[in-house]
């Protein structure tokens, strides 16, 4: 197995719903290697998004640990977690979540601005990244002027532009038709190979599972199987 990027050790996550406790994740342990291209699949409420939130440092486990390159996220302050996300994590969303008042160029520039970089220093990189996702001609357009597939391409460029170690993609193809979904997944696979950023999908979409190299199935907050694309099981 490649070098470990993420380690989840006996992670549990409980939510209080009224007076009841709801178990979103129950004793989940797994490792994700650098450059992985994998998916969390499962029905609604199985814990996919919760798992992404924990890995992304957006939430903390009730018990257990989430380690990023050996560093326990539990020990990080809120500001340190923000810095962790800023530096290491790229996000792709089902609804794209582009900033509507900014152009394609500015949306891709946004994470670099958050990282404190100056626009003049990163202009070329942003333009290159927009070109990589095939939107060079649309670089000055606003999200409202783009199709769903084009918006998701902008979101991919935005996630990759800061060269993160990990991209978390929450249902990225759910709002796209089959052809656009295929194109997006091919693009992500290509970029995964080129940029070596690990990609974790959370999805219902079977098309996604055909592209990934590893699939973790979740049911009722537990890992029910964890297999590579060749059918071999991954040992946790």
């Amino acid at each position, binding site marked *: 197995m490649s070098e470990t990027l993420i380690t989840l050790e006996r992670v549990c996550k409980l939510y209080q719903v009224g007076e009841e406790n709801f178990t979103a994740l129950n004793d989940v342990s797994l490792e994700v290697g650098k450059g992985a291209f994998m998916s969390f699949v499962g029905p609604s409420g199985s814990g996919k*998004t919760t798992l992404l*939130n924990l890995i*992304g440092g*957006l*939430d903390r486990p009730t018990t257990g640990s989430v380690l990023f390159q050996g560093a326990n996220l539990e020990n990080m302050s*809120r*500001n340190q*977690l*923000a*810095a*962790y*996300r*800023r*530096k290491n*994590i790229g*996000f792709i*969303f*089902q*609804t794209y*979540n582009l*900033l509507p*008042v*900014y152009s394609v160029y*500015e949306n891709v*520039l*946004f*994470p670099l*601005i*958050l*990282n*404190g970089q100056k*626009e003049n220093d990163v202009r070329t990189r942003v333009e290159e990244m927009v070109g990589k996702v095939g939107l060079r001609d649309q670089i000055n357009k606003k999200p409202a002027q783009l199709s769903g597939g084009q918006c998701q391409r902008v979101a991919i460029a935005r996630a990759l532009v800061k060269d993160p170690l990990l991209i978390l993609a*929450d249902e990225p193809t759910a709002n796209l038709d089959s052809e656009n979904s295929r194109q997006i997944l091919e693009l992500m696979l290509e970029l995964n190979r080129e940029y070596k950023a690990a990609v974790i999908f959370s999805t219902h979409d079977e098309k996604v599972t055909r592209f990934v190299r590893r699939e973790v199935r979740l049911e009722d907050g537990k890992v029910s199987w964890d297999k590579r694309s060749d059918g071999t099981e991954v040992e946790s």
Partner: protein
Amino acid sequence: MIRFWFRGLMRDKSRFLFPFTVVAVGVTLVVALVGFMEGVFMGMIDMTSNLDSGHLRLVNKAFYDEEHLRPLDRALANQRETHDWLVKHSNQEVDWSPRIRWRAILDVPDEQGETRSQTPVMGMGLDLKSPDSKEIERLRLKSSLVEGTLPKGINEMLMGIQLAEVLDVSVGQSVTLLGQSFDGGMVADNYKVAGLVRFGVSAMDKKMVLIDLTDAQNTFYMEGMVTDWLGYFPPSTDFDSYEEVKLSMSASLADWTPPKDWAKDDAPIVLSIRDQQNIGAIMDKFRVIKGFVVGTFTFLMVLVLWNAGILSGIHRYGEMGLRLAFGEPHWKLIVALAIEGLWIGILGSAAGSLLGGGFSWYLQEVGLNMGDSFAQSGLMINDVVRARVTVGGFIQGIVPGVFASVAGTLVASMAIFQRSEANLFRELEAG
């Protein structure tokens, strides 16, 4: 980073235009209202002080107590010595002007010398002929002169324009003053009407006659005597300074050895403008009203901007969640929002200052003629109401405008602190 967010701010009408408009309108109203109130109030104060009360006033207490009767026998003698004492014991910036307040019957004769018309008048004797006199400028007599000239020769007078109309008097005509002298005897003295004046105060235009101080002293047998000494500070002086100098002078009065010609029971007192004609109470009320107006507008602005901030926050929940998810710390997000509020506050305040200041400036230069409304009032208010553009007026508009914008944004952004990133993230996805 600030430039990046500012670019977005300027493009997003929903998060810029509404709060900007609220601040601009609020600041416009405050600046215009404060300018108007200051103008009306200060106009009244200036008019009252120039014509009647001075900023400071030295007067014999016995005269002041029965001022309505104009008891000339309670005037203060030794004009020169009194002036020297005033200069020595007051602030060096104060200019002291001697005056005689009198009342008399003004008789207008016909060609045969018989009475054609007659009326009681209020009069003032003041320095109209000395080359270094500031009274002409102070009362704006040159610009107020409707017809004729300022008094130059002996026994010449200026008459209120409406009084002249009622009595059917024209420039150059001779009239007679019938009154009471300093020692209680009857006096009758002829004067030539040198000019007709529109004071701009209806009460004065109808009743007032001005004569030179020396002529008044001769007519009323008051050589070296005056009823009042009015002290004037430079225009920029704060009201509080009047009180300080008044208190200091009042303390010095106790040690003053009275001039030899003063009566034994003469007891001069020093008054500030606040002490006269209930002006102190009016000033205090004005300050309270002004504070209330500014406070109310500020409160309303904060309230509206708070709601605008909440609406904008809801509108921008996706953006907030995204920024937090992408690693912007909470505190930086709040600071960014505060800076955004500051920008909106500054731009809105600038626009409001321009509009409100422009309105005040227009009213300051052109004025609003309220002569008909004031005609029956008897108040010493200029018929043409003018606003006053002051630095204070802008400060009272701009500071609340900027504060309201930042406070409104910050209050609205408290919601961000109360939600964890994961919640915002979920709401971001739901949105």
